């Protein structure tokens, strides 16, 4: 599976949080609280692993091993988008 989508957006992350972990969060709120720890949104380690797995399958490539250890939405998006856009 190849893809033209290179950036994971805040909207996409919010949708993934819902789908993979059952966490409902408004994308605008996620944008506003982008440095808030995932735990405060109710997202745990397994949920983040589910999101990582989903993104890996969507983009057909592995993400950095640190992806599931990211503490906040910003850290996660920075790492993931860095990897996806550089093709690392």
């Amino acid at each position, binding site marked *: 599976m190849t893809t033209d989508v290179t950036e994971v957006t805040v909207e996409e992350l919010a949708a993934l949080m*819902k789908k*993979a*972990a*059952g*966490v*409902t969060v408004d994308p605008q709120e996620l944008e506003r609280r982008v440095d808030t720890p995932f735990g405060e949104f*109710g997202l745990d380690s*397994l*949920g983040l*692993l*589910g999101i990582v*797995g989903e993104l*890996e*399958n969507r983009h057909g490539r592995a993400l950095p091993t640190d992806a599931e250890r990211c503490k906040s939405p910003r850290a996660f998006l920075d790492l993931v988008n860095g990897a996806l856009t550089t093709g690392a």
Partner: protein
Amino acid sequence: MSGRGTRHTAVTGLGVVAPNGLDADTYWKSVKEGASVLDRITREGCEHLPLRVAGEVRGFDPSALIEETFLVQTDKFTHFALAAADAALQDAGLSSSAADSPYSVGVVTAAGSGGGEFGQRELQKLWGQGSRFVGPYQSIAWFYAASTGQISIRKGFKGPCGVVASDEAGGLDAVAHAARAVHRGTEVVVVGAAEAPLAPYSGVCQLGYPELSTEADPDRAYRPFTAAACGFVPAEGGAVLVVEDLERARRRDAFVRATVAGHAATFTGASRWDRSREGLAHAIRGALDEAGCAPEEIDVVFADAMGIPEADRAEALALADALGPHGTRVPVTAPKTGIGRSYCGAPLLDIVAAVQAMEHGQIPPTPGVFDICHDIDLVTARPRPAELRTALVLSRGLMGSNAALVLRRGPGPAR
């Protein structure tokens, strides 16, 4: 004995998710009226199986009851258990914060089929798409311990937590396990069993049980104690109880709905129904002994009612063996013929029916069963009013377990 049995454990909360009712009162109303909700199986992917009739839980909306973060990581059997646990705690007037210490509340469940639907979905991803498509929740949703773990986490209960992964009789064993934990000093235990075996692959797995009814007519599919007995009908759902130390319940002015008075379990071999006579009789004697209860004190029996002629005969004879002449006189009932057997959940639902029967002074009938061909007083057609102080609940499992539990009527609401 050491006096560390099940005696003096109060039942203070009941929670039900059953094919005939999504709460304990609706369940009781249906049971009392002798309604049958057995029907052709409609679950997607099951319609072609030779398992035709089942007791399906209908109209259950987990999203209205349980947070989505719990729902995504759990199977239906855990959804049922979480909902029933909530109801039981509410009935008991307990919230997680009401405990003196998180360690004073334990959780015990019995499980006989696990998270089959969730597991099938993940197996399909693995074999249909590849291992990378298996999600992170498979490791915690399919296994038998899921419901105990999730109830404990959701409610913050850190007391002794256990799981009896068992055949049907394990439902009674779990209640005894909880009552014994109370005797060892745990104040409250949330205990129950709920099953969800009506998924396509789970259905296929059950087809191997020689006792499974494959009759297509819901009115004829599950008729224990009759000459037309042709096996049992599986069901989903179950019940959760709150049990607690009787003194503690009195201190907090709780409504003690019943007490768990005695239990015993035996084993006589898978599908060895002739031998279950001896096994069940031995279990009944053990439970009466622990309860300090004479056979004549038993006012009603909730039968296992397997629905196999040999098994039904064994159960009728076991009652006579263990209770003497009283065994043929005591009223016997099997409400499960109207809802099916939800494996470990079935005896829990019988406990709930027994508690409510004692409270209301009504023995519920055995739906759809007439023309009894055994020497027992099976209550049929309509409820029978009776003063009920003590109930005996029986259960046998397809893998050979027999269990008996004695319940005493509670003192009722605190004055």
